[in-house]
């Protein structure tokens, strides 16, 4: 049964806000045992054992590893390399402590059934500060009975139809994010932006993913179709090719690559740091994963209940901090589909095995990873003929809380893969109408950031940093709506509005360069024509006024001249150059003087034409206060305080 044949009900997003069903996961992945050693131990992982550069006793650790047939490898790569990088990065104001801490993270590889016992034993060792087993991560796509239906068996037509009309998330706000507006601005299709998606597998041979992609650059892809469909759908949302068939991504000209969490020596945290190292400041990482959290003791009870964002685990958190703080890369992270409240005190409890210094990363009062966390909101009712509740209301499965920055469509996302919109035997031609979850929400935000970065780069403006990206996503956009049982107080943030964001970034006046003659551009041309008409009307009005002024001036000069002739009938003023008083009172000279006057008036009227006038909305006054202005403000306060104090003293003196 194809998903497109579904009825109007929608799990998790229906009017009743149904929570995820207990459908077991079908995504294969691995648990990871992470050990954090004490930083002064100076451990170095050798081929079969561990040594200490600080002379610490590693006998018990090595014997434990040997007895259990386990190996221990540094999560982020060779310790000396990481340490060297930490030293080098220390000269950079954005770097230091986080990288030095990263040398203490190790992954213990052993049979899955041994991991829990090994973690317990590790915690008893003097060298070990923390040891915890990370549950299996999964892609945060909504799992339902019908969502795992096989693709449409009907073969695809010779040419794939254009599905962009079904991608309503591209449309104007509040329903969409107004990507179509961004496309009309220089760089607004994400030119120059680079994105790396972190999850399990992709199909980069898909017909709509052939341009501007660099393939899989780390880890080993899973052979599982579920992972592959997911990765393909995600990358299609922001990176779908800009062509006349299938779908078009939100920032189709951005460069898209991928890193898998699978493979020898690979882990979720390492995938994040690998991605950060492959990118530059202002580029984007997308973490398309979630995992069972403490609600059900890190167990997968089915239906993704209790699944949370990946930054909860210390190694992932350190890797994200590295990406955002050291590398300046914007990290976008799915909030997860666990229907969890991140503000629940449950998340303040330090899980067993976590380091003593760990603090709940979902609590805004604690140190933050700097990632943008994305929740899933309902699309406008009636999208694809289905209703998931009020537009922009939280979908029942989406995690929520103060830490969640922004929302994207968590239902009805038309993109590549799965095959329920267009199926057949060739996977490269598959499309879906129903991609969902915080999985579908996060790429929308990535696409929005990609458009902003492309336009900023094209305008030669400073790129967004992780902090400014998070800020603009939090402060602009279409607000979250209430839905019975899912009030807006269950925060998932605003839906991005690129038109508003561009305005705030001072990008709304950049030149239109694209040549596509789609409806939007026709609309733009219409708007332009209207403006021109308006402008012409103003000009005609101005001309009329000028003629009136000219006539009045002419009259005045004639009167003046007559008065002069009357007073000094024989005297004539001598004047050279452009003196408008002229050299004679003859009628011809009078005309030339009038024409000079006209010219002067004309110049005065048009010395700054409309198109040259500065955009005052994007002036320095609209920017964040710089230090000089804070200083001036403080100085002003000081001066005012002194003046007030003096006045008070004088008053007292007078009274006495």
């Amino acid at each position, binding site marked *: 049964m194809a998903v497109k044949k579904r009825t109007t009900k929608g799990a998790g997003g229906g009017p009743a806000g149904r929570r995820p069903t207990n459908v077991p996961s079908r995504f294969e992945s691995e648990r990871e045992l992470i050990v954090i050693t004490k930083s002064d131990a100076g451990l170095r992982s050798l081929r079969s054992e561990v040594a200490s550069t600080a002379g610490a006793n590693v006998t018990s650790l090595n014997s434990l590893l040997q007895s259990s047939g386990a190996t221990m490898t540094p999560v982020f790569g060779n310790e000396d390399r990481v340490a060297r990088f930490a030293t080098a990065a220390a000269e950079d*104001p954005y770097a230091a402590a986080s990288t030095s801490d990263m040398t203490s993270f190790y992954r213990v590889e052993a049979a899955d059934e041994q991991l829990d016992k090994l973690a317990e034993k590790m915690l008893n060792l003097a060298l070990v500060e923390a040891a915890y087993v990370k549950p299996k991560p999964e892609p945060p796509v909504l799992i339902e009975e019908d969502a795992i239906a096989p693709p449409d068996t009907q073969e695809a037509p010779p040419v794939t139809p254009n599905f962009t009309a079904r991608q309503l998330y591209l449309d104007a706000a509040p329903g969409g994010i107004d990507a179509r507006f961004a496309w009309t601005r220089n760089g607004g299709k994400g030119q120059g932006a680079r994105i790396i998606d972190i999850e399990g597998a992709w199909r980069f041979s898909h017909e709509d993913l052939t341009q501007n992609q660099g393939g899989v650059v780390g880890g080993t892809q899973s052979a599982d179709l579920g992972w592959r469909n997911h990765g393909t759908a995600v990358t299609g949302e922001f990176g779908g090719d800009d062509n006349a068939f299938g779908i078009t991504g939100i920032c189709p000209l951005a460069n898209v690559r991928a890193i898998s969490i699978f493979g020898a020596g690979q882990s979720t945290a390492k995938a994040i740091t690998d991605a950060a190292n492959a990118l530059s400041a202002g580029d984007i990482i997308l973490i398309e994963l979630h995992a069972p959290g403490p609600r059900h003791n890190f167990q997968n009870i089915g239906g993704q209940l209790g699944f949370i964002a990946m930054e909860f685990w210390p190694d992932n958190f350190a890797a994200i901090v590295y990406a955002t703080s050291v590398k300046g890369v914007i990290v976008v992270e799915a909030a997860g589909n666990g229907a969890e409240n991140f503000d629940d005190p449950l998340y303040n409890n330090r899980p067993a095995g976590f380091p003593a210094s760990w603090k709940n990363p979902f609590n805004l009062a*604690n140190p933050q990873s700097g990632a943008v966390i994305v929740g899933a909101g309902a699309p406008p009712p009636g999208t694809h003929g289905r209703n998931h509740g009020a537009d922009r209301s939280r979908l029942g499965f989406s995690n929520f809380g103060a830490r969640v920055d922004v929302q994207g469509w968590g239902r009805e996302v038309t993109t590549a893969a799965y095959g329920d919109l267009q199926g057949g035997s060739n996977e490269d031609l598959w499309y879906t109408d129903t991609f969902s979850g915080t999985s579908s929400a996060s790429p929308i935000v990535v696409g929005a950031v990609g458009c902003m970065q492309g336009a900023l780069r094209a305008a030669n403006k400073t790129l967004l940093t992780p902090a400014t990206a998070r800020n603009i996503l939090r402060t602009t956009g279409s607000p979250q709506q209430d839905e019975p049982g899912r009030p807006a107080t269950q925060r998932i943030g605003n839906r991005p509005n690129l038109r508003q964001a561009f305005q705030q970034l001072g990008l709304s006046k950049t030149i239109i360069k694209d040549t596509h003659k789609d409806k939007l551009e026709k609309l733009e041309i219409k708007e332009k024509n209207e403006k021109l008409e308006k402008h012409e009307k103003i000009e005609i009005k101005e001309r009329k006024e000028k003629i009136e002024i000219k006539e009045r001036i002419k009259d005045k000069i004639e009167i003046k001249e007559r008065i002069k002739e009357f007073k000094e009938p024989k005297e004539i003023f001598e004047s050279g150059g452009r003196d408008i008083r002229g050299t004679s009172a003859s009628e011809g000279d009078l005309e030339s003087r009038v024409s000079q006057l006209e010219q002067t008036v004309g110049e005065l009227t048009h010395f700054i034409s409309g198109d040259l006038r500065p955009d005052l909305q994007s002036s320095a006054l609209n920017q964040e206060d710089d*230090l000089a202005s804070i200083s001036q403000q*403080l100085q002003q306060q000081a001066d005012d*305080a*002194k003046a007030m104090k003096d006045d008070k003293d004088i008053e007292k003196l007078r009274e006495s």
Partner: protein
Amino acid sequence: MWLVLCSANDYSALWAARGLKSCGLLPLEIVSPESLAYNLRFDHRIITSETDTKIALADGRVIDSATVCGTLNRLQLVPFKHLRGASQTDRQYAEQEIYSLFLSWLYGLQGVMLNRPTPQGLCGAWRHLSEWVWLATKAGLSTPGYKQSGYKTGSLSVNKSNSRLQSLVVVNDNCFGASASLDVKDGCVRLSKLCSTPLLGIDFQVAPKGEWIFTNATPMPDLTLGGALLLRALANGLRQ
């Protein structure tokens, strides 16, 4: 509420204040020493176990000690311009009284304060160079010879040619700034502990062979040297 007490030209502190705000320390008030000194009303009550202070500033803000969570203290001097009309004897007495009042208020203010005042300085003890050299030696840092002749400030026997100046900043036992060896950083942390100054700037001359030689220290470092990581440490420190 978090406080950043600094003068208008202390750009380092203003930079930190802006960064602390972005780290989520809200509300955060930047208050200049002039605003504090030229207050409308200063109520400071001391009882056996605690103090209670309310300062009404001219701009309408009220600093209530009960609402203060943490303070970045960069106060060096209390402005006394408003006392110029008084006779010298009265002025000197008033200056001492006001200084004591500030010292008492800052010392008793709840929450973390970087740095707490001491009788030797409102934002941490200002020390003579000889004392810094002595403390740095005790902390295990490489120190140069110190020579004192008469009452003039002593001099350090550091060969400044071919060496470069480097500065490190210690915040709550974490060292930030230039790239230095762990030994040097550990020494800086020890020095910070020895002089009970959790926010401490330390200057070095780095010899061509790479030896880091202590040259001075200050309780009012340039915070921008530590960048975002220092800000994070500062924010974490002030939250505790």
